[in-house]
């Protein structure tokens, strides 16, 4: 197969070589971190090393990091654990949130929790005053998706956070897409809970974490052992967590140049497409956005088909959300922003990252206009 151009780094990222090496080494250290003996202690050391690396990237205390299987589990732990400690609770989230928050929210709603789902503007932004107005009492948990996975749009988080905390409510931040792309520091942000995942920043799948601020009483959601200070039962995925740690260490070291590099490539792609393709628009804010993400509506061209056409030419992008069978549904995020179903179905997400270079971007800019014309002409929308 010809060399592929991977522009879907918001779905998942390729592993960094340093991560592969660390994980390979960790595979041989097979002990159970809960065991007292030599092998257990060695595995425990690996685990705690990773915890320190994650904490360092975030400006957290290692004791505040709870390892999970990924951000979905971290979000579930934040919502279920966060709500169980709040009698007659109230959850505030947004219509443009990730399914790993929306679906637990639905479940909690059926269990009697009041759920408020805030709208977003055409820019993809929440209205901070609406968030604050939605906070009813100290029994409220506000969950904010900092960087949207589909549009990359960044919420005005410090404004929201200060106001939420001023009212004494709990704040959960899903920072899965933000980590490794923009500075994410819990010493500068008054979040109580914050989720992240290794595979979005060149780490392995199956490892993530929830930051739980010291002093917060969070009930376990996955019960079955004393691990993670009783906040997450089950033997830890040591190999994956080691990879997460290294990925965080690399992110901490490289963040400013990494973000600059992503923005260069993303902007080059946008400018190229804008100059060569007619009737297209960028979805969501172009200023408050992750440096790596570009969501574009190609009016009148079916995104699902465009994705396949690009794939057949060796380029990987994303369109909407995958349904149960693997076909594509119009993005609920774009619909929540007020795009029409036709516009939502005509949209593609390009997300750059490690390994992408200018030559690849130029190749894509060269390909897209013809493919868009072909897809539009075939009238498949």
């Amino acid at each position, binding site marked *: 197969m010809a060399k592929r151009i991977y522009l879907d780094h918001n779905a998942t990222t390729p592993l960094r070589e340093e991560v592969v090496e660390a994980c390979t080494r960790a595979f041989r250290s097979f002990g159970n971190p809960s065991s007292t003996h030599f092998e257990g202690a060695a595995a425990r050391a690996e685990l705690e090393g990773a915890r320190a690396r994650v904490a360092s990237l975030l400006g957290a205390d290692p004791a505040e990091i709870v390892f999970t299987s990924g951000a979905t589990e971290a979000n579930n732990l934040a919502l279920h654990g966060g709500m169980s400690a709040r009698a007659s609770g109230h959850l505030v989230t947004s219509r443009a949130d990730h399914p790993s928050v929306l679906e637990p929210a639905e479940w909690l709603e059926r269990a009697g929790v009041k759920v408020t789902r805030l709208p977003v503007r055409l820019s993809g932004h929440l209205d901070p005053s609406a968030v604050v107005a939605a906070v009813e009492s100290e029994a409220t948990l506000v969950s904010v998706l900092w960087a949207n996975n589909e549009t990359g749009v960044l919420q005005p988080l410090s404004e929201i956070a200060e106001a939420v905390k001023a009212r004494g409510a709990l704040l959960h931040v899903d920072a899965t897409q933000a980590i490794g792309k923009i500075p994410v520091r819990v010493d500068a942000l008054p979040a109580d809970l914050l989720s992240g995942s290794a595979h979005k920043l060149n780490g392995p799948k199956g490892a993530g974490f929830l930051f739980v601020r010291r002093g917060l009483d969070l009930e376990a959601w996955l019960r079955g052992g004393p691990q993670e200070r009783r906040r997450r039962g089950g033997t830890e995925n040591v190999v994956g967590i080691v990879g997460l740690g290294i990925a965080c260490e690399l992110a901490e070291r490289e963040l400013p140049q990494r973000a600059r590099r992503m923005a260069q490539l993303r902007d080059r792609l946008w400018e190229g497409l804008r100059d060569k393709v007619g009737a297209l628009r960028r979805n969501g804010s172009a200023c408050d956005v992750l440096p790596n993400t570009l969501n574009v509506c190609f009016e009148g061209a079916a995104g*699902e*088909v465009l994705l396949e056409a690009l*794939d*057949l030419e060796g380029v990987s992008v994303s369109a909407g959300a995958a*349904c149960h069978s693997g076909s594509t549904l119009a993005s609920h995020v774009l619909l929540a922003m007020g795009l029409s179903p036709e516009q939502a179905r005509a949209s593609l997400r390009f997300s750059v990252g490690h390994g992408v270079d200018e030559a690849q971007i130029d190749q894509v800019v060269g390909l897209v206009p013809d493919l868009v014309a*072909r897809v539009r002409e075939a009238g*498949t929308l």
Partner: protein
Amino acid sequence: MSTTAKLAEPGERILVAMSGGVDSSVAAALLVERGCEVVGVTMHLAGEASRCCSLDDADDARRVAEKLGIRFYVANYTRQFRGEVMEAFADEYLAGRTPIPCVTCNRRFKFRHLLDRARALGASAVATGHYARVERDPSSGRRRLRAAIDPAKDQSYFLFDLDQAQLEKALFPVGGMRKDEVRAHARRLGLATAEKPESQEICFVPDGDYASVVEKLRPEAATRTGEIVDTRGRVLGRHRGVHRFTVGQRRGLGISATQRLFVVGLDAAANRVVVGEADDLLARKATLEGVTWVAGAPPADPIRATVRVRYRHEGAPAELRLTGESSAAVDFDQPVRAVAPGQAAVFYQGDVVLGGGWIAGSGR
């Protein structure tokens, strides 16, 4: 290698509609063996409840695609399928007809939407697992639609209302094979679908319970109770909606009678089900609408043809006359049983499909 696969050239990009069954799996395999760049697509048509194009079938198709080393996608057509096929299906039943959604699905989905997709993806044709043959007539350059080699499996009936432009882009790689050969080929290649049982039902009608599908799509259907009458108009009983009946049906009438009774007519306007004896089902004539000529321009009439009035009908010799731009009258040489409005009447000369139309009415 079957003759149809030869209509594709090595290196050509071909889109294969993969249902997750053995026939379309082998269709894809034959084109891969031919050297084509095959792209497999499973059409996600009906919702999760449907038997075909379900999660499991898409998974089967994906497994086959992986085995064959081809790219594979699931294409979402649920929005269009609901309006263009499922609701139209329900409306036909409510109008007292017995629809065949598969014909509509072939014309509008496999050979329109999917053909559009093929164009968008730079593919030159759409192949399916249908048992039918398409050939190029060397003298006229036109495409000819023929019945499959395997008469027990022939599906040309379901393809009658394609047009020449669609046929030119259509490939039926297994149409020149018998079913056992298809299965043997799948087994040889180790395809996951080799032993998968045949699907006979309409994909979005689980367990053949079409009445509840109609009622789900058109809830008012359930409230339209009416009378069951005999051919002289005498009331024999009540029914729970004309959509529950098909001409020729014997079971589920809920009337006791000394002789066997059959549904012989459905009068949707009067909301009546007409029943009669076996002889009342015989028709010498039928009127057709929506007549199309897949073989090309309509021949000068009257023409002689073998006419099949439902999928499992062996065909009856008849004379056809055009009565309008897209309507025709059929005179059968011998009476034909259960000519049901809404079904297709498909014209054959030998194994060549000339065209066909939709049965609007029948008479003695």
